[in-house]
């Protein structure tokens, strides 16, 4: 992305993630992230074209949400006695909680224009480190949590330093870091599944039923989502992070400490991964080797799906959360239809491509329609 870093072409803030917008548009996106709407000063489009633009605008802003509603409605109609039940919806939310926290952390990194492929391993190591502290070293759960968070902090700082300050490719550094963390995970856990001497309070993080019989994890994820949303959307720092991701050169020339924001992105992603790891191991009551591997790609899928909702092609917390829930709904619904795991993976992948395609086409159409009117105005 920026600072002459090698991730310019591959970073999600590049043209692919912003629907082919120019740097200037991307910088605007960094500030307000609303380039798809017709310019207020532009000539009003013809009625037919206006209707089409409104439709595209709706699809670009709410396409994912509409898809989620359609999926829930479809599965509920097809399986009214099993899908549309309180129990099933609670299950979907519970299973979405830890993946949502992981994906939210990833969203922060994507917002600043980087990739983090180490978050899956970080999730595994975070959970394993906490469980290992209790299971192998007999520490209290509070100490175990602190140790896990410190491990995440260190990994995030190392990622951030190498990428932001030493200008190494985020793709390569985090891929390597993921491998290192996986190795550390095996060492920490003694190459075995850890399940004994886990404090009941720790297990409660993943199992406790709270208000409305809803799992505590759901509220933890909700809290993380709200904090992250406020941070990115309603604070100066958050807006600067979008600016860095939109066009880091412009951001740097504007006086922003680009490197610091990128470093912060990796630290926050690592911390979120540790929290997710804690919840996963708390729910399962065990830490298994290579625990985090299955969580990496769905986190990316959710974050990219999230660009098809709420924010017209930009990574955003609300979109990511809806993306996670959408994937869980699809998995649960298709399972109820007796569709095999292989097909569920294929359908999820196809949905991801379709969502991005629809969102991207919508943005291009809006941009193409707006361009001449803006010029004339």
């Amino acid at each position: 992305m920026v600072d002459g870093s090698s991730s310019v072409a591959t970073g999600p803030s590049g043209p692919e993630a912003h629907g082919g917008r120019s740097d200037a548009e991307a910088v605007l996106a960094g500030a307000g992230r609303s380039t798809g709407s017709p310019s207020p000063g532009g000539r009003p489009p013809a009625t037919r074209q206006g209707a089409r633009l409104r439709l595209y605008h709706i699809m670009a802003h709410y396409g994912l949400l509409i898809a989620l509603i359609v999926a829930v409605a479809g599965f509920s109609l097809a399986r009214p006695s099993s899908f549309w039940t309180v129990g099933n919806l609670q299950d979907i939310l519970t299973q979405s909680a830890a993946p949502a926290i992981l994906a939210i952390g990833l969203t922060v990194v994507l917002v600043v224009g980087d990739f983090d492929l180490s978050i899956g391993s970080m999730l595994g190591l975070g959970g394993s480190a906490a469980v290992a502290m209790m299971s192998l070293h007999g520490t209290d759960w509070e100490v175990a949590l602190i140790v896990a968070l410190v491990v995440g902090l260190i990994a995030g700082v190392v990622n951030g330093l190498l990428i932001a300050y030493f200008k190494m490719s985020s793709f390569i550094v985090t891929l390597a870091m993921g491998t290192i963390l996986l190795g550390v995970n095996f060492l920490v856990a003694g190459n075995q599944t850890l399940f004994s001497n886990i404090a009941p309070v720790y297990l409660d993080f993943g199992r406790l039923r709270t208000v409305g019989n809803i799992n505590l994890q759901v509220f933890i994820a909700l809290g993380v989502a709200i904090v992250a949303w406020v941070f990115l959307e309603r604070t100066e720092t958050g807006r600067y992070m979008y600016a860095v991701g939109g066009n880091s050169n412009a951001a740097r020339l504007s006086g922003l400490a680009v490197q610091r924001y990128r470093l912060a992105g990796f630290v926050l992603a690592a911390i979120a991964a540790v929290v997710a790891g804690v919840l996963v191991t708390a729910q399962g009551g065990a830490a298994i080797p290579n625990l985090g591997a299955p969580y990496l790609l769905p986190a990316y899928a959710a974050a990219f799906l999230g660009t098809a909702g709420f924010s017209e092609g930009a990574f955003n917390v609300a979109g990511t959360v809806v993306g996670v829930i959408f994937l869980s709904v699809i998995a649960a619904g298709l399972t109820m239809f007796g569709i095999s795991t292989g097909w569920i993976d294929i359908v999820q992948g196809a949905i991801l491509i379709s969502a991005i395609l629809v969102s991207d086409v919508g943005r291009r159409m809006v941009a193409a329609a707006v361009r001449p009117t803006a010029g004339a105005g």
Partner: protein
Amino acid sequence: MVSVPPETIGYLRYVAADYSDGLMYNSFVQAAKVLGWKVVSCDGQGTPSVMAACMSTLISDHPNAIVNDGIPQSLIAAGLQQAKAAGIPLVYTSGTLAPGSTSIYSGTNLYDAGFTTPDQQMGVDLANYVVKQLASVPGTKDVIDQTFPVAEWGVVRNIGMESVLSGQPDIKIVASPQANSANLVQGTTTTISALLSQYPKTKVVWITFDGTVSGAAQAIQAKYAGQTFPNAPLLVTFYADPQTDQLISQGVVSAAVNVQLQACSWIAVDQLAQYFARKTPMSPDVRPNYSGLNFFQTQVITKANVPAGNAFPAPPVNYVTYFTAKWHDEFKLP
């Protein structure tokens, strides 16, 4: 009495992090130590490329034999062929590996011998336990059967189960999802949760591959917190490893059928010892006859008989004592 030459055995581990792998490997080392053999191991990490590298490394050490714990030959065919060309005997110890295997010499088998557990019988015995438990429940009883067709032992465990349940008209398998090798625990939680919502009258969740049982346990715990059978489904699986034992103690897993997987390793060492010391060909039988002793007697482990301290169940027939005594009688030991 004959002497057993001091041999070096290369041992390719499927996944060292796996508990069953550890049981087999440690037992092999323990047995080899009795004969004064050296065991050189390499962890395949469940990854074919690593396994291939391990095979090359082991072959380059010129061992007297190479043993692995149940790696399908398709994953390491090149290494097996290389070893075969170098005249190194190849042995596996594991769950059922070859289709319908009573002999491993059929087809294009690259292994010289293999010693395996009676997985089909385990399926039969666990299914009989299920039938017994369901006898008191009126009406049709739904079963969710999570299969694992990737492995032959997974296939034959289900064949055993189906042979029993097919004679039970009031027990119905309503769903047979496959365990996802790439997402064993979380994938199982998602799948079983959805299926329990779809089939709320489910009375049994059958987990063919024990590696996924904690995922199924999470799904059942979330849906039936604090409830036990028959208000919650029975959760049954294979092998009473320590984690499963803990889940049995907590009442989350209802039963696990167990056999002494490690006996395969002792049999492998004995067969190799006979081969090295007497040039006797290794047995073509996957469970050779040792004076009619059944080292693979199945045990259904429940809350009533789960071992203290969540240990692996003690063997009904002590193969360690048997083979140690046998070798002291037959061989001049170091």
